[in-house]
């Protein structure tokens, strides 16, 4: 760029950076503030330099930065199919930085209609899958059995005993019947 940066640029030149920055919507802040999730080793000077040279964005003199420690949890990420107990760990912390912009930036409105993202379908699927997952899980014995299922089982048992139906293998546990 022909124009010099409005701050003192460092000596180290990085041509091929290998990290990512996420721009976060902050509704509690005014429009002339922007917040980013940055790598944990990032500094305020790095952010100022990155935004200027990568996005041609001039920011105010003060950058606010804080590290958000994550809570201790168990299991692995990505979580495997079986629950992983006793693997207590604290996942990596997140660093957030807030900058003051020269010109305000307002985020576009969030979409009202979430049909394109199949929000309804996934909600329905989760609602159906929820009890099933609990039944198949480690606390499956503790789940109650609904009266519909009880009557349905009673009728099936009756039909088998009276010879109206013949038992066939192939239906796995829990599937094909509603809880």
């Amino acid at each position: 760029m022909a124009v010099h940066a409005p701050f003192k640029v460092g000596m180290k030149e990085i041509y091929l950076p290998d990290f990512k920055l996420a721009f976060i919507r902050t509704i509690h802040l005014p429009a002339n503030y922007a917040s980013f999730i940055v790598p944990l080793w990032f500094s305020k000077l790095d952010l100022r330099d990155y935004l200027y040279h990568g996005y041609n964005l001039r920011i105010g003199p003060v950058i606010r930065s804080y590290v958000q420690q994550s809570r201790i949890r168990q299991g692995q990420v990505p979580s495997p199919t079986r629950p992983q107990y006793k693997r207590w760990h604290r996942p990596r912390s997140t660093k957030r930085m807030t900058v003051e912009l020269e010109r305000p930036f307002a985020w576009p409105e969030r979409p009202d209609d979430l049909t394109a993202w199949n929000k309804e379908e996934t909600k329905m699927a989760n609602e159906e899958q929820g009890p099933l997952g609990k039944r198949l899980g480690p606390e499956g014995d503790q789940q109650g059995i609904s009266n519909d299922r009880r009557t349905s089982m009673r009728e099936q048992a009756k039909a088998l005993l009276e010879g109206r139906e013949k038992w066939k293998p192939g239906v796995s546990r829990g599937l094909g019947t509603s809880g």
Partner: protein
Amino acid sequence: MHCTSASLLRSALIPSASRTTILPAAFLIPAFTTHPQTAPFSSTPIAHARKDGNRARGVSALRHTGIGKKQKLSVSVKDLPQPVRDPQRRSKIDVDPDHGLWDFLPTARTAIRTPDELHAHGRGWTVPELRHKDWDDLHRLWWVCIKERNRLATQHYEHERIGGMDGGSGMYGEHEAGARDQEVRKTMKGIRHCLTERWYAWENARVAGMEDGEVDLYADLERGEAAYLPRERGDEPVFLGSEDDARTDPGEGVETLYINLYPNLSPSKDGQTIEVYDPIATSITITIHSISSKMSDINDTLKALGPQTATPTPNTAFVVFVNDDAYVGHMAKHIRNRMQGLAVIAKGPLTEGDGDAFQIRLCAADRKVASACRASLRRRMPL
């Protein structure tokens, strides 16, 4: 107080209805009216409180204390502007269309992309495609990839906020974003691979240039210094055969020697005999015959030499001159097969000229004789 006056005063001060009040004598009245002289018992100076110059003491914006008693604002409290709490009633902000932060959001300038929009991408760049590109193009492409990854990271957090975490999967789009990110990362990996390849090629060339005697890497081309300074062929013996000749020519006890001759051994001096002396071994006679590189000529020459070639004396060497284009190794082998003992084949122009240099390849059946011959020739003809 003095005990006498104390007892008197006590009876006077303590009101008692039962007892009749005893009024003190008139001469004692001045004791009550005049103030007694007092002096402080302690000699320590009393610490007086310093005037507090901090007008803002006790005022805190974080603790919501409000304005201090001594603070005067340019605006009165009741005239202070109040923030608009309701987001609907706030004024609309005109965002600059050239704002740098638009690069973090989708190209359509929506909050997040739909799964269909995320899926609409091709494959990443392959390494053969990237090899054609120069550094500037690769650098630009790298930054395009970086910005796309930032966009996808922004999308990820916004996706979670909108509804991605609702009881598990929530909303579609994460899988498509992951596939898109993977293609971007493949491109970046390819760029790194190409640049690494280029660096190794450059490094190998640089090392070869440093080690090569004919190349001057520190030459200043603008000032006219030459980077390539080819040496003249006469300076050093040029080995025009292959390095594998020694290996492919498995003659037992064969030694090859590459030496330079001076014009005093020009081929025009046919039949010239020079004597080389070796103090350890006996003297070696070198007879020079110049022929062309044709096999027929070589054979004729060998035949003409006659009994000398059939049973040569162990200390006899024959110098056979061949053309420049002749394959010296082949000649050497041929002649060695024909001639027992020492055979010397010299390469060089067949015409005499001053400053011509010839090369001799010495093929000896006897290693001892060969080394002696080499030593003698070296002494005879400074290389």
